[in-house]
């Protein structure tokens, strides 16, 4: 199983994309699930311990990290020739300029057509359990070729992708170095892109400094917000662990008609209009919010949860009116703002010709 096949690599070795990160104290290859025990309220120290950054990036056993794969993967990720129109790269919708999303309510695909859902960030994808808003991809490798071949996205059938890449001489040695055995294949294109994506990890944020002991790292209202997040707000029921997600599916009562996870689990009432919980790292760079991009600001996000949205059978039992005061709402927003790091600019690679 994927969980037991993970290997780890130090962040210092793997980083190609983000800011350098001072070593946190906790060694953890797996993100914690981090749910607060319901029987006894956790102390502040116990709560903080649930959100410590891992020290390593997990890579799957069947696609371990190599510099060659990550280097090739980065070039592929930023290469617009992976689309039929030579205009869209992976980075078009998952751009370092927008917290590795696109800053749009919904993605824009082939022929400038608007897609059905917001482009999710790839930040911390290495730690994900399942991919896409509806969980239809079980791994990054499985996901990587999907948008390339999708006619509404990059619109490039995989045989044509191969033909295009084979006609670019400078790609050949890169594939050979990364995959000495079989070189350029669809699987290896996916493996290289997935390897690069796993190196995109959120930087150390003020929140990390605070939970490691620096009391001046975040304002008092953010500290109150963290407690609210874990208690009255109940946010941690889903946004748990250091990456603030449970990788699970919930209907949070938004008003659009998209069935989400329900497409794959039509008989499960609670999976209708359910979407995967997004992580919250780098959150201020990633608006607008929700799977449909319908909520413009973090303040409006809190307001949505405060009123609990549309009441219907599929809505998660965890979503209920919160009766937050104006101060409490402000505190929660202040807390979320501490999850964004000062990311260094990402270098755009020179592409093979």
């Amino acid at each position: 199983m994927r969980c037991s096949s993970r290997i780890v690599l130090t962040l210092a070795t793997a980083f190609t994309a983000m800011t350098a990160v001072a070593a946190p104290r906790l060694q953890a290859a797996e993100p914690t699930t981090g749910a607060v025990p319901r029987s006894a309220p956790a102390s502040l120290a116990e709560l903080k311990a649930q959100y410590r950054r891992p020290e390593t990036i997990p890579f799957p056993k069947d696609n371990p990290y190599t510099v060659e794969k990550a280097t090739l993967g980065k070039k592929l990720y930023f290469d617009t020739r992976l689309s039929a129109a030579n205009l869209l790269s992976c980075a078009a919708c998952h751009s370092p300029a927008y917290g590795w999303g696109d800053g749009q309510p919904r993605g824009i695909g082939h022929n400038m057509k608007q897609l059905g859902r917001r482009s999710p960030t790839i930040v911390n994808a290495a730690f994900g359990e399942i991919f896409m808003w509806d969980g239809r991809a079980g791994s990054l490798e499985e996901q990587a070729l999907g948008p390339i071949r999708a006619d509404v996205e990059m619109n490039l059938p995989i045989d044509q992708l191969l033909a295009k890449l084979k006609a670019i001489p400078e790609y050949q040695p890169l594939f050979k170095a990364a995959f000495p055995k079989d070189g350029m294949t669809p699987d290896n294109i996916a493996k290289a892109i997935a390897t690069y994506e796993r190196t995109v990890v959120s930087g150390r944020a003020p929140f990390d400094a605070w939970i490691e002991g620096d009391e001046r790292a975040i304002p008092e209202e953010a500290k109150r917000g963290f407690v609210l997040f874990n208690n009255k707000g109940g946010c941690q029921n889903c946004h748990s662990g250091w990456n603030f997600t449970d990788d699970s599916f919930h209907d949070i009562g938004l008003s659009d008609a998209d069935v989400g996870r329900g497409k794959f689990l039509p008989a499960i009432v609670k999976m209708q209009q359910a979407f995967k919980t997004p992580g919250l790292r780098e959150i201020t760079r990633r608006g607008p919010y929700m799977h449909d991009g319908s909520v413009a600001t973090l303040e409006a996000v809190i307001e949505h949860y405060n009123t609990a949205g549309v009441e219907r059978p599929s809505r998660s039992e965890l979503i209920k009116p919160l009766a937050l005061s104006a101060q409490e709402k402000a505190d929660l927003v202040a807390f979320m703002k501490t999850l964004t790091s000062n990311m260094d600019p990402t270098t755009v690679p020179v592409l093979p010709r």
Partner: protein
Amino acid sequence: MKLMTVALVAAFVSGSVVAFAAEKTISQKGRAFSESAVTVKKGDTLTFVNDDNIAHNIMSSTAGNEFNLGSQAPGASSNVTLGNAGEVAVLCAIHPRMKMSVTVTD
């Protein structure tokens, strides 16, 4: 005489399956399976008990041993018998971090 031997062997085999079929119970408290890996024999019964406080949806899409228990409410339990030898990946389709592996032996 030969026919009788065959019949006896057949009876023994089928009898042994009945005699040794076993049960194994997996619980799901705190969004986690109580075991991450178990080994069972073909024909053994795996019982998934939902002793958590939320619904789960246990399933496997491993070829030859696919099953889907659907929505399992807190307090409910369901049985699964796996018919083919091999490694079976089991997960909760609602909470995919809940996963375990079942090794089915002949």
